[in-house]
C-alpha cells in the first residue's frame, strides 16, 4: 500500500500519469506495471512522505518529477529488479528520503543528478560507490543548498575513484568551504595541523601521501587498470601503453583508451579505435630492468610484478607499465612529496 500522501498526489493527475506510463510502455514493451507499482511503493513513496514532512507544498511537483524519473530509469534498466546498477537503487532507497528538504526545492534535478552519478560510479570497476554514498549522506548537512550538495557529490566521486575527473573536480573542490574541503578528500582537519592552502598544494600533485605527509617519498605500484574482457575487464589482447601529448594511452589492437590515475584511483576512458601517433621517442628518466628493478627520479624500487615488461609510458609523475603475461596495466608513481 502506498501512503495517502502519494495516493492523493497521483489521483490528482491520474490521467496524466496513466498516459505517461502507457506511452513509456508503447516504447518499451518489457515495462511491467507490477514492477513499476513496486518501485512507486518502495522507492518513491518513502521519498514523498519525507518531503511531505518537510515541505507539504512540494509534494505535487516532487511526485510528478519522481514518477517520470523512476519510469525513465526503470525503462533504461537502471532501477528495478533487472538493474545492473545497485548503487542507483541505493540512492533511491537511502539518499533521496534523507535529502527530502533539498529534494523539495529541485526534485527532478537533484534526483536525476544523483541517479546519474550512481550510474557512472557503477560503470567503473574499482570505484568505491558505497563510500561515495556514505560520505555524501554524512556530509550533506554541511551543504545547505542543492548546488553545494551537487558540488560535494562531484568531489566525492573523484575521491572515490573517478580519476579522469581530477582536473575539473579539483577546481570544484577549491570552491568548497574549508571544513568540507578536508572532509571531502578524507583528511581529518587535525591531522598534521595542515592548513587549507597546504592541503591544496599537496592535492595539486597527483600522488600525495595524505595519510602520512611527513613520510619519505618512495616508488610504489599504486593501481592497476584494464584486465581481460572475458573476466569483465577492458582488453581483448594483452595491451601496450604509450604517451602522446602528455597523456597516457593503452591499446589492445581493437581499441584505444586514455589512462587516468592519481592517489584516489585509476580509470580507462575510451579514446577511439587507434592510438594517437607518438610524436617523438619516449624520453623518461626511469629505468626498469627485466627483473623489475626500477630507478626513477633518484629513487629505487623492486617490483617483481613488472618483470618481463613489454611497454611502458610516462606522463608527469605517473608511469604505466604493461607486462608480458597479464592483461593488467600497472601504475607506478613517486608517492609523497611533490614528486621531485
Amino acid at each position: 500500500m502506498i501512503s495517502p500522501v502519494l495516493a492523493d498526489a497521483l489521483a490528482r493527475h491520474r490521467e496524466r500519469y496513466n498516459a505517461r506510463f502507457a506511452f513509456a510502455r508503447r516504447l518499451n514493451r518489457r515495462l511491467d506495471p507490477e514492477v513499476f507499482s513496486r518501485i512507486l511503493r518502495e522507492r518513491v513513496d518513502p521519498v514523498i512522505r519525507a518531503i511531505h514532512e518537510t515541505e507539504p507544498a512540494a509534494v505535487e511537483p516532487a511526485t510528478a518529477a519522481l514518477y517520470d524519473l523512476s519510469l525513465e530509469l526503470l525503462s533504461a534498466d537502471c532501477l528495478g529488479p533487472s538493474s545492473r546498477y545497485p548503487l542507483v537503487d541505493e540512492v533511491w532507497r537511502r539518499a533521496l528520503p534523507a535529502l527530502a528538504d533539498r529534494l523539495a526545492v529541485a526534485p527532478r534535478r537533484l534526483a536525476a543528478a544523483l541517479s546519474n552519478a550512481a550510474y557512472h560510479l557503477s560503470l567503473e570497476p574499482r570505484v568505491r560507490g558505497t563510500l561515495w554514498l556514505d560520505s555524501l549522506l554524512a556530509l550533506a548537512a554541511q551543504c545547505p543548498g542543492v548546488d553545494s550538495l551537487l558540488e560535494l557529490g562531484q568531489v566525492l566521486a573523484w575521491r572515490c575513484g573517478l580519476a579522469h575527473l581530477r582536473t575539473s573536480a579539483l577546481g570544484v573542490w577549491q570552491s568548497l568551504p574549508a571544513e568540507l574541503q578536508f572532509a571531502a578528500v578524507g583528511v581529518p582537519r587535525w591531522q598534521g595541523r595542515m592548513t587549507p592552502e597546504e592541503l591544496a598544494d599537496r592535492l595539486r600533485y597527483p600522488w600525495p601521501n595524505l595519510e602520512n605527509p611527513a613520510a619519505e617519498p618512495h616508488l610504489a605500484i599504486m593501481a592497476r587498470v584494464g584486465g581481460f574482457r572475458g573476466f569483465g575487464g577492458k582488453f581483448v589482447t594483452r595491451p601496450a601503453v604509450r604517451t602522446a601529448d602528455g597523456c597516457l594511452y593503452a591499446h589492445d589492437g581493437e581499441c584505444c583508451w586514455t589512462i587516468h590515475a592519481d592517489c584516489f584511483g585509476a580509470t580507462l576512458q575510451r579514446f577511439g579505435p587507434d592510438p594517437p601517433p607518438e610524436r617523438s621517442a619516449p624520453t623518461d628518466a626511469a629505468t626498469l630492468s627485466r627483473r623489475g628493478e626500477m630507478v626513477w627520479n633518484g629513487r629505487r624500487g623492486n617490483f617483481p610484478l613488472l618483470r618481463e615488461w613489454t611497454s611502458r609510458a610516462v606522463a608527469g609523475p605517473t608511469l604505466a607499465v604493461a607486462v608480458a603475461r597479464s592483461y593488467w596495466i600497472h601504475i607506478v608513481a613517486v608517492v609523497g612529496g611533490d614528486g621531485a
Partner: protein
Amino acid sequence: MSTMDRFQQLSEAPTNPPAETGRREFDVADLYQGPASAATEAKAAAGVALDEKLRQAYFWITNHGIISPYYDIEYNDTPPPVYRFGDRKVEVTLPSAQSYSSYVLLPLLNLVTRRRCLLVGGPGRGKTAIAIIMGVLSGYSLREIKRSIQHGQPQMTIADLLGNPLPATLVSAQSMDEVKIAWRKWLGMRIKIIDEYNRIPTRTQSALLTVMADNYAEMYDQIYECPAAAWYLTANDEAGGGTYQVIEALRDRIDVVVQALHFNTRFLHELLLRVEEGFRPEEIVPEQIVFTGEELSRMEAAARRVRLPQDLRRRLEFFASNFEFFEPAARQMEYMTKDTVKLAGVEFGTLAQTETGKDAGIDLGRQTLNGLSVRALMTSLVFVKAMAWFRGATEVSFEDLRQILPFVLYDKLVQYADAPFFEQEGHAAYRSDRVSWLRMLFDRSCQEFERLNLDREDALDPLDAQFEAGLDGVNEKEVRRRLTRIERTLNEWSQGRKLYGHMFDDILKLKYYHQRYTNYLRWLLWKK
C-alpha cells in the same frame, strides 16, 4: 539508445554534430549526465540554443505527437531521385536534405513569429490537436489550454468572446468608464486558439477582428490590452464556407494557412496503439521542449535578425511585382491596378478579355485577381526569416523563400480561376492545389528574372545606389546627367516592348526618381 531516451531526450538536431573522436576533456559536470534526463531548469542552465530546442520540438511532434508522415517542404543538397507514376506522370521526389512536414513546421514557425495561423482541413484531421500542442509548448497546462479555446458556434456573442460587465458596477455606474468588465482569461494568454472560426456570427467576428488585428479588446469603453500572442484558427472549409461567411478583413489578418493532409492508412497501427493504451500526445509533451514566455520573445527577436541577402530580396520584389498591374484598368499608369477594378466594381473577367498579345507564360499577373498587399509582403519576410532561423542559418536561402511563400500567400493571392492558363493541358489541378500553383508562380518568376539577366544587369541598380547615397553635394550638372539617364532608360523600354507587371513597378520608380531629381534641381537653381 534506450526506449526512454527516445521518449525523454528528444531527437537529434537536424544539423548533425561532428563525430566524437579523439581525446576528450573530462568535465566533472558529466557526472550528472546520464540515463536520467536532467530537469528543465538544468537544461535551461546548460544553455540549449533556442533554435535547437525548436527543432527538438519539431522532431518530437513528428515522431510522437501528430501522425503526419509527409515531407512536403523539400530541401535538397544534391539532385534528388525523381519517380513518375501513372498516365499523368505524377512526380515523386526523394529529398536529399532534411525536409519537413508543413503541417507541423508552419504552426511552429507561427509560434516563433507570433502571427496568425489558419489550419484547414476536413473534420478529425488533428487541426485542434496541433493547436493544443502549440499551447502546451508555450508553457500552459493542458487544462488551461482546453479552457481557453474559443469554439466558434452560431450563437456566440461578443460577451462570450470577450467577457461580461460586472452586474454590480453596471447598476451603480454613473458613467461608462465606471463599468468594470470581467475579461475572458484567454485574452491574456500567449496562445490564442479559435476553433472553427467560420462558425462565428458576423457581428462577433468584428469583435474578434479588433483583437486579432489591433491586439486589444473593447467593451463599454473599457480597453483590454492583450499580450503578443501566436494565434491558431481552425476551419473545415477555408474557402469562406461554414455557418457564416468570414468577413474579408478577418481573412486578411490570417498570416499563414496550413492544410491538414489526409490520414495515411498505412499508419493505422499508430491509431490502434493510441486506442489500446489510452495515450494522448498532448499530455506527455516533454518539459525540455516547453518554452517560457521570455524564450518565446527571444526566439521572435532572433528570427527577425536573420539576414535576407539582397539578391533574394530582388527576386521577391520581382515576383511580387507581377500581380498588381492590370493594364486595362485605367488610362493613367498609376491606376493600372487590380485594386482600381475592384474599387470600381467592374467585372474583372470582362476587362481581362481585352488583354491580348502578352506571353501567358511570362504574364503571371493574369492568373490572379489581386496583387500582394504590404501586409502580405511583411508576413512573407517574417516567415522566411523564421524558416531560415529554424534551420540554424543566419541568412535566408533561396529554398527557404521558395518553400515558405506558398503557405503565406495561400489566402493572399486570389486565383483567377477563369484565366486561360488553367485551361491548358495539365494546369487544371492548379485550381485546387494552391501550394503547387504558388510555387509554380515563384519558379516561373525566377526563370524570367534569370532570362532578363536581372541578377547581373538591373537597370535600376546604379540609380538606386546613387539615390541611396543621398543628394547632399550633388551639383546641377550631375542632376541633369541623372535625369537624362532616367529618360534614356524609359525611352529604351518604350520601344515596342509589351508592358508586364515588373516593368510597371520599375517605370513608376523611375518616374519617382525623376520627380525627386527635378524638385532638387529646381531647388538648386533657386538657391543660385
